[in-house]
């Protein structure tokens, strides 16, 4: 279950640097360059499974999970977009429907885009500026009731959005669309605004598309594909957009998603060629049996995600209000053992918050990364370990969680802690640990994935004590330190290399001085593709290959 549940406002703080870099490299060149070229890649039906899940919505006005977005990426025509490229190149924006990056007024509050002429939707209608205006309005309209939980992040960005959201205006006054010219009026300068526009909420949609609280299952789109049919829980079928004339790959004739497949059955289907790929990955236990990943000719693909997995410690109460005990736990935990329980190629051990690819990431080993160091744990924790109250270890009651919790509890006991095992169902689990004043001490199933490739998204979002609210907290540690808050603010205001350096130091400071969590590994996504699949290009942003680039022809 890889939900991207948070798309906070901050997620799109793509460093200004990134934007500048993108402009410098020249969007035009990356847009015209055809990735994976060759007509030979075209044709066939790409059959994709998704184990245990279905898209919740495919309507871009409502969809906001990564699986939804990885699919919408193939149907949406964005003003600015990411190219179908692996690695860092895949995170460089280029103007897609826009002729170039926008012209920005001197006060930084007016952005003007010019659209390419001749763009068409899958129903033949031309794409005009109104298509993007409609996308924004469908997102914020009270008639959509959407997108649940993200309105707050946009209503204050554009002039008039707030009034529109509250039903006081027919249109967002700050967006004007005249022919191919689209203008946004912002309430205040926002250097990350262009990055917002790469989110799948803001793809072109025909201006006549209705508002609907329950979302559309099919609609005309202007990207390489369009959704030809969808039966929730059964199938979603994409077909090549006959009117798409752009340079993005559109290799399969048809892309079929089959949801809710059993994960083991799904692997069998791929092995036997009845399916091409499970976009939800493989069963962890199968990883050891599939050969060497990413080798030439190997059907086994492993790609790093941006997800750091950690155990959170409740710093709001004893025993883990004592920083030396938190450090002791960081020494006591057997990280390799945890990883082994997750199957082969599950990820890479880590003891810090930032992950490779995030500006400022610098590997440093503060704690016992190659195994538990009981002696060190005991000496760091000292006599406080023995006098500490029993550690309430909370974990979901699945087999996998329970196994890993047992190892953690063993590690803690080795170091001299007293331990209480607290298995709970998944639904209660998050409720419990996200509520201020919770009774848990150590939570097993913590983790964070990049909403965007910026350290802010990890450090500030997770550890800013000022964001702690009554319930629904992401700061599971309830870590609240005034000095660290100040340091974070300072880092966030920087840009470019200075920003990266500042966050690198923060990452180290956090773990060395405060240790509110036990980071233990960066997870990989593990896939198995059918024999016929070619042109695998992996996006660590979606944690998926680019479906439109995959070839089964």
């Amino acid at each position, binding site marked *: 279950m890889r*939900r991207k*549940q*948070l*798309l*906070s406002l901050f997620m799109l703080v793509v460093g200004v640097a990134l934007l500048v870099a993108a402009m410098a490299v020249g969007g035009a060149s990356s847009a015209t360059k055809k990735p994976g070229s060759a007509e030979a890649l075209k044709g066939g039906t790409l059959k994709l499974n998704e184990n245990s899940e*279905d898209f*919740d*919505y495919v309507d871009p006005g*409502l969809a*906001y999970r990564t699986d939804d977005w990885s699919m919408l990426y193939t149907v949406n025509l964005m003003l600015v977009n990411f190219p179908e490229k692996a690695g860092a190149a895949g995170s460089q924006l280029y103007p897609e429907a826009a002729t170039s990056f926008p012209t920005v007024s001197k006060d930084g509050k007016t952005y003007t885009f010019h659209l390419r002429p001749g763009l068409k939707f899958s129903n033949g209608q031309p794409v005009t500026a109104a298509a993007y205006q409609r996308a924004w309005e469908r997102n914020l309209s009270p008639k959509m*009731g959407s997108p*649940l*939980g*993200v*309105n*707050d992040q946009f209503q204050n960005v554009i002039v008039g959005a707030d009034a529109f959201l509250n039903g006081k205006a027919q249109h967002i006054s700050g967006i004007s669309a005249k022919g191919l010219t689209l203008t946004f009026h912002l309430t205040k300068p926002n250097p990350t605004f262009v990055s917002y526009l790469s989110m799948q909420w803001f793809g072109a949609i025909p201006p006549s598309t209705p508002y609907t*609280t*329950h*979302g559309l299952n099919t609609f005309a789109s202007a990207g390489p594909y369009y959704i*030809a*049919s*969808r*039966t*929730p*829980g*059964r*199938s*979603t*079928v994409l077909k090549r957009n006959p009117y798409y004339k752009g340079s993005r790959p559109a290799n399969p004739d048809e892309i*079929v998603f*089959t949801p*809710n*497949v*059993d994960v*083991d*059955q*799904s692997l*069998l*289907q791929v*092995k*036997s060629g*009845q399916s091409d790929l499970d976009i939800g990955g493989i069963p962890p236990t199968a990883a050891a049996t599939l050969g060497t990943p990413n080798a030439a000719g190997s059907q086994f693909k492993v790609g790093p995600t941006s997800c750091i997995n950690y155990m959170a410690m409740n710093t709001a109460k004893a025993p883990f209000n004592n920083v030396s005990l938190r450090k002791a736990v960081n020494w006591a935990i057997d990280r390799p053992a945890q990883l082994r329980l997750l199957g082969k190629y599950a990820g890479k051990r880590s003891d810090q918050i930032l992950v490779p690819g995030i500006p400022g990431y610098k590997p440093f080993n503060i704690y016992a990364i190659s195994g538990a160091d009981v002696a060190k744990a005991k000496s760091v924790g000292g006599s406080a370990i023995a006098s500490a109250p029993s550690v309430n270890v909370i974990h979901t009651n699945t087999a996998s969680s329970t196994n890993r919790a047992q190892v953690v509890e063993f590690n803690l006991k080795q170091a001299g802690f007293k331990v209480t095992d607290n298995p709970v169902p*998944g*639904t*209660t689990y*998050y*409720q*419990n640990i996200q509520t201020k004043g919770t009774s848990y001490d150590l939570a097993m199933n913590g983790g964070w994935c990049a909403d965007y490739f910026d350290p802010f998204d990890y450090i500030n*979002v997770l550890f800013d004590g000022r964001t702690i*609210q*009554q*319930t*629904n907290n*992401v700061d599971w540690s309830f870590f609240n330190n005034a000095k660290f808050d100040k340091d974070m603010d300072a880092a966030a205001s920087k840009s470019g290399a200075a920003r990266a350096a500042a966050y690198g130091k923060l990452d180290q400071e956090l773990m060395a001085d405060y240790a509110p969590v036990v980071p233990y590994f960066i997870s990989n996504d593990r896939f198995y593709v059918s024999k016929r699949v070619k042109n695998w290009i992996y996006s660590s942003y979606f944690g998926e290959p680019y479906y439109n680039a995959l070839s089964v022809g």
Partner: protein
Amino acid sequence: MTQFLIRRIFWAIFLFFVATIITYLIFWVIPADPAKLAAGRGATMQDVARVRHFLHLDEPIWEQYGRFVWNLIRHGSLGRSFVNRQSVDYTIGQDAPVTASLVFGAAVFWLSLSIPIGILSALRPRSVLDRVSMTFVLIGISAHPVWIGLILSYFVGYRLHLTPISGYCNFFPGTAGAQCEGPVQWAYHMILPWITFMVLFTALYVRLVRANVMETMSEDYVRTARAKGASQSRVMVQHVLRNSMLPVVTILGMDLGLALGGAIFTEGIFNLPGLGHEIINAYNNDDLPVITGVIVFSTICVITFNLIVDIAYGFLDPRIRPS
């Protein structure tokens, strides 16, 4: 007969309220908050409040229940899913035929297997056939459908390529976007699910039929028939079978009604988009409208099948025929 039906209908309404009220109460008691799930991790309190209002979760539980009942009575609507906002009526309408395909198809197989085997076992207790079939009964009762399903998929589907590994095709062609459809594909895709689903029931029914036939064979009226000079086959067909099938009919009715509420494991393993699959997904997402919808539907199924059993019983057994 009319009085009987009226009593039944009142009983059905009563059960409907009991089942749905319990669902709502459980939902109210467990510390789950679908608004939070829908709003997403890290959503601000205002976001969650907005979602809660949108989903009417800010109302007291009895008001929510009242809204549910009103919508059902006034509009015949079971509401919309919290998770994907699809209409629950539509979802159940989509799912029910799949579950029905599985349950009725499997029932045909398990009955046509268990009745002859049960009878033969009863006729020759302690024979080789009886011992072999009782061993299979034990295995069938012990083996979990998930295990059976995975083993079948692996060997029959994956190694031998005899059947698809999983998936479902509509019986009636004409669904948009369907990758496969029509009776042949439907049956082809259902073979493994049917087998998986019927193993347990075949085992249970072999035992049931065997026990009933043996019991009936020791009835006085069977001795009477023999004393009349009736042949073995006449005794079996005319005197033993109908009487020994009476309890089987009752149990079959109950089993079918229950199974229509969802064959959770088999549907999960073979990715059959039926009610069992639906309710598990809904449960994982705290999707109250879908959970309630499936419960309402299965309550109706159970009640309907019990009614059918009662009416059928009237024809099969003159002793309780309402005159």
